[in-house]
């Protein structure tokens, strides 16, 4: 009964926040909480990484539109593929002034390191701001590769001499590389680098043969004609890459996204949760963020409250299966 009431309340809050936005009013009666000290915005990556850039982008939107009465201060906890940040947030139980920006290591790191004692189901869902997409990229000078079939032929011929660059071990890029290897019977070698920008540059400089970068990471080189996408790991074709087929079209059921989500400390008060949900709904609907989503070819609707928690639990199971399959954890 209690759980049901809580569920209804959260749904009500999300609905309220949504209505408030459409009506254009500043706050709802439910959002009584007001932050009293600077909001600590934990970043699961180092300064200058993709997640860090997004947090500073949010910070600028919040400051520019005066959305919060206190400053938002980003704090970087890059250690251990998110482990440091997760442990830090987990230790802030009941804190109403600490939030974090998270990726898919949110699922994989606690699965791979149970010793951390982190259960993501205890965290407070706030808002999923986007889902980043993945594409398979090669250098534009590879005139012999124009589609996935050509790619498979070329990669097969080179065997383990074919270099796939990606960010970190057991990361999103690693999962996708393993998928391609098993789906097409390839033996590509995965070489981890620090940061998606570096990976994109390795491809453009021909130090790697292919990558599975996000569009935002490859955009500069793609626009300059250095690299080209072959296929997308999305259910439908992306508006920015209309001529690029999806793997689903090519008969491989591989759809993969990376969440870009704001999460609160475990045991955050409901009022504070409602406040941050409202705050980030406004950020989500700002012109600047909407333009960013379009420019960087990001997908995903705003997801808050219990819907976000359900999404996490679903995704965690998906990642558990993937990690078992690649041998990173035991079943």
């Amino acid at each position: 009964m209690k759980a049901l009431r809580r569920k209804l309340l959260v749904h009500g809050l999300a609905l309220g926040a949504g209505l408030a936005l459409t009506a254009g009013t500043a706050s709802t009666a439910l959002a009584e909480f007001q932050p009293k000290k600077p909001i600590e915005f934990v970043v699961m990556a180092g300064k200058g990484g993709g997640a860090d850039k997004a947090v500073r982008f949010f910070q600028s939107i919040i400051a520019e539109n005066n959305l919060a009465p206190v400053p938002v201060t980003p704090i970087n906890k890059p250690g251990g593929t998110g482990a440091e940040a997760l442990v830090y947030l987990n230790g802030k139980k009941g804190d109403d002034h600490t939030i974090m920006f998270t990726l898919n290591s949110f699922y994989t790191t606690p699965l791979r390191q149970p010793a951390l004692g982190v259960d993501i189901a205890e965290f407070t869902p706030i808002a999923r701001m986007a889902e980043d997409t993945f594409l398979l990229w090669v250098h534009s000078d590879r005139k012999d590769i124009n589609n996935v079939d050509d790619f498979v032929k070329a990669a097969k011929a080179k065997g383990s001499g074919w270099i796939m660059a990606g960010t970190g071990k057991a990361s999103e890029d690693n999962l996708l590389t393993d998928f391609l290897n098993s789906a097409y019977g390839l033996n590509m070698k995965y070489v981890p680098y620090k940061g998606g920008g570096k990976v994109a540059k390795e491809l453009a400089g021909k130090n790697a043969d292919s990558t599975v970068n996000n569009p935002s990471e490859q955009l500069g080189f793609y626009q300059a004609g250095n690299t080209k996408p072959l296929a997308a790991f999305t259910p439908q074709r992306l508006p920015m890459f209309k001529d690029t087929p999806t793997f689903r079209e090519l008969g491989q059921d591989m759809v993969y996204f990376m969440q870009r989500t704001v999460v609160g400390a475990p045991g955050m008060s409901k009022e504070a949760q409602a406040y941050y949900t409202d705050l980030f709904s406004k950020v989500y609907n700002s012109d600047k963020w909407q333009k960013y989503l379009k420019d960087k070819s990001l997908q995903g609707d705003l997801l808050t409250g219990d819907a976000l928690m359900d999404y996490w639990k679903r995704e965690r199971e998906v990642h558990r299966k993937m990690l078992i399959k690649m041998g990173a954890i035991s079943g």
Partner: protein
Amino acid sequence: MVEILELLVTGFAVAFQPQNLMLVIVGCTVGLFIGAMPGLGSVNGVAILLPLTFLVPPTGAVIFLAAIYYGAMYGGAISSVMLGIPGASTAVATTFDGRPLAKQGLADKALTAAAVASFVGGTISVVLFTFFAPPLAHVALVFGAPEEFALMMLAFATFIGLGGDDLYKTVFSICIGLVLSAVGLDIISGEPRLIFGNITGFLHGINFLVLAIGIYGIGEMLWTIEEHRKAGGQSMMSKATVTVKRTIGNLKEITRTWKTLLMGSTLGYFVGILPAAGATPGSLMAYGVAKQISKNPEKFGKGALDGVAAPESANNAASTGSMLPMLTLGIPGSPTTAILLGGMVIWGLEPGPRLFVDHQDFVWGLIASLYAANLFAVIINIAFIPLIIWVLKLPFTILAPLIFVLCLIGGYAPTQDLHDVWLMLLFGIVGYLMRKLDYPLAPAVLAIVLGPLAEPALRQSLLISGGKFDIFFTRPYSGPIMVTAIILLLLPAIKPLVRRLRKRG
């Protein structure tokens, strides 16, 4: 060529708009203080001030942040010379000779040399940037993991191959630094290493500043307290004074180091443009080369003016250089440019090969503002020298607690983790003991800076080659660099041999 000059003139028109000029001056001054505070450094300064920049148009914003970056590069030398604590990794090499000069009562000379060297390095590199940006961008692009590793080897080699100190103790010190740099997450396997069971504070690794501030700040203070007591309460620091006559004399003396300045600037610039290298290897290499080509190498480490001029010209040149991969490839050449890159996203600009074509106003406004930033930074810096010297005249009993507090802040600031403050104090005590036993500490600091850059590059290269070491010798860029590094490493062994052969001949 004519086209470039035209673009530069339009750039100057942008940079010299009153608002932008104000931003340059304010930015340089703010940067100078940020850089002078150990532990704060340009990375944190730029990150903290980033949200302010939406108040001005993108060009003004980048000019402001670049001016802070520049000012901080000048300021970094101040704490190196005055306190012996490098405020940022880029200023490590400056302490080697800057600190001894200050102890001899020549702090004003060291600071003036640092300012002038920064100016020369900054200016030469901006000129190089203006005329050779696109072709050099290509070099940066093909520079892969094997080349990066070769470059790191060269940085180690220029430094170690010089000999001088006790070789075994130097190697021991380097090994300690390398072990400390291995703490934290292994980026290749994704596993945590050396975290002592499960201490989360070790997960983010050991920041270079924790070690540097520990051994140079805390360790040096313990050392000074001991000397202070021995000397019966008299301060060990001889006093420097500033007069116009002295300053002119200093400037004259500095012009004599022109060869070193020229070498440092060019070397720094070329190392700076290589992605992920940044200004630290550049400044260390410049110091090593300066010692190598000097007629009086024995003076290095005891207060040689060239030993200040080389790293300071190189680190400023490299900070300009590191803007190149940021603008043309979207790859940060240093941690600070990584933040600037984030700023460009906020301002709605896409860094990458198209930026030079699509946003000429922005690019050339930035380049022109670098010329202006250099000019103002050197003037502001020299103007502040008397104030800084005055601080040194404070009695040790007042200065010591101030330095101690600065150390604590510096240890906490980069990671905002109290764990690192305790670690820093521990390093301070260990550093003091090592110094008592006559172990050189600089190699440990060098290793903790270069280790995290060299290790992934080595392992990525070996992954690519399937474990074969010939990958470092068969590629067009890494081959020559690696061979040079090996020759330099063997130099101390070869030199006496050559000398003996000559005697016989």
